[in-house]
């Protein structure tokens, strides 16, 4: 199986590889395969590649490099990359003092708060890429019953560590920021650490599983943030 793909020149230095598919594991493995190919064969030609759910955008060093790439594009043979088997356990406290939108969201989704928590923490999510803020994970795999449009008026500030639902996605705010997602809990894990190289612990393709913790455990973990456990 292969997904239809094309390359669009956006500006003399910028272009985009786009796949006509919805984000899923197969598309991700194709994308990661393409990233490996770029790193291997074109690394000295581009300044940066950015990854999204259905595209890879390439910022080229010069227009000639982009033209050469575009001419050869249809001939590239890309081997999908096997997705990682790594699962990270991410502790989350779903208490109302942290997940202040839990009640309203449960009502909107016709669930009890407990059902909502169980649904959110029972599945594993696939990390596709980091975006929005340094270390903000784009996770795929939110159960359909929890899909919820973003807030029409974003919150002025969302606390660092807040676990949230927006559209068909779930994620964690690595730092305090304005935000339009529904806040359902908080994780004591440090998602982005400037002093580490790389500053994030997970890689695209890894899976994340949220583990519900009680407020007492949370209090302790907030004092000494744990490193997420590998399963």
């Amino acid at each position, binding site marked *: 199986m292969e997904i239809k793909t094309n390359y669009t020149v956006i500006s*003399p230095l910028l272009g985009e590889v786009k796949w006509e598919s919805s984000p899923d594991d197969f598309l991700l493995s194709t994308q990661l395969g393409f990233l490996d190919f770029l790193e291997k064969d074109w690394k000295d030609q581009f300044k940066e590649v950015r990854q999204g759910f259905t595209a890879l955008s390439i910022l080229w060093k010069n227009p000639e490099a982009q033209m050469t790439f575009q001419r050869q594009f249809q001939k590239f043979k890309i081997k999908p990359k096997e997705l990682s088997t790594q699962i990270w356990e991410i502790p989350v406290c779903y208490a109302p003092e942290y997940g202040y939108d839990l009640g309203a969201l449960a009502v909107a989704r016709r669930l009890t708060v407990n059902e909502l928590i169980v649904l959110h923490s029972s599945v594993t999510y696939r990390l596709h890429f980091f975006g929005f803020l340094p270390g903000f994970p784009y996770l795929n795999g939110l159960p359909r019953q929890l899909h919820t449009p973003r807030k029409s008026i974003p919150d002025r500030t969302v606390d660092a560590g807040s676990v949230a639902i927006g559209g068909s996605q779930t994620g964690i705010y690595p730092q305090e920021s304005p935000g339009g997602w529904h806040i359902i809990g908080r994780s004591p894990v440090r998602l982005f650490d400037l002093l580490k190289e790389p500053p*994030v612990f997970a890689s695209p393709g890894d899976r994340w599983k949220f583990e519900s913790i009680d407020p007492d455990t949370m209090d302790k973990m907030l004092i000494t943030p744990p490193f997420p456990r590998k399963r």
Partner: protein
Amino acid sequence: MSKELAIATVLKTGPGSSIQGLGRIGQAKYGIPLSGALDMKSFEWVNHILQNEVFNAAMEISQPGFQIKFDSNTSVAIAGAQALIRLNGDELEGINLISIRANDVLEIGAFLSGARLYLGVRYGFKSPKILGSRSFYAGLTEDSFLSKGAKIKYFTESNPNSELNAKPKWSTDWFQTEEILVYPGPDFHLLNENLREKLFSESFRISPQSNRMGVQLLELLENELPELPTNPVFPGTVQLTSGGKIVILLRDAQVTGGYPRILQLPEESQWIMAQKWPGNKLLFKLKKP
């Protein structure tokens, strides 16, 4: 060559000024924005006339009423916005390469044209390097903006250039234009004829809700475009929100976004945007890549 560290102290500053360099290229995979000077053309000129390295960091000053004191000899260069410049109270007319003696106070007064002024120093300002760059960015560097009393390190120049207080040629004509050259963005095809017509025939004004992350436009472009899967954006990407807001992303913008990416400004157009004030008018002029 032995160089000694000296200190420049910010005595006065308006909001929004910072230290910027080339930015953090290659770290978008961790969600880290590019950052760096908004008007790269003026920034590069400052380093050029100081005979600095291209990556040496400079101050990006975005408000009049800036005062800085240098505790040791050096040379500074100024480019970008044109402003009234005073050295120890004396006006320096048209001079943009200035020799500085210990305890000199340099002042940036009213802006005559342009919105961002670059103040560079020989060998560059040495604010802490975070993830390979000295460019300020909230959440990464300790400071997001320059504040009153801030002390920034630089290397003193024992033997400043004698040809200083010169007037190297620097024109600001290039940013006086209202016309902004743009390319179709990756989601341009979603715009119908009517929206395209409006986008390229009407003029738009810059909203006060603009900063280093992006410039918002006052006039809305009502649309029924769908929300899309989150995909890459770059400085210069123009997003159209469901509410009709047009946002031109600049160098501190996030690396991905979910709004349709209708246009893309090439670098040259981004430099022009950096020199615009809220209320300024602009006209998009479409160019095929």
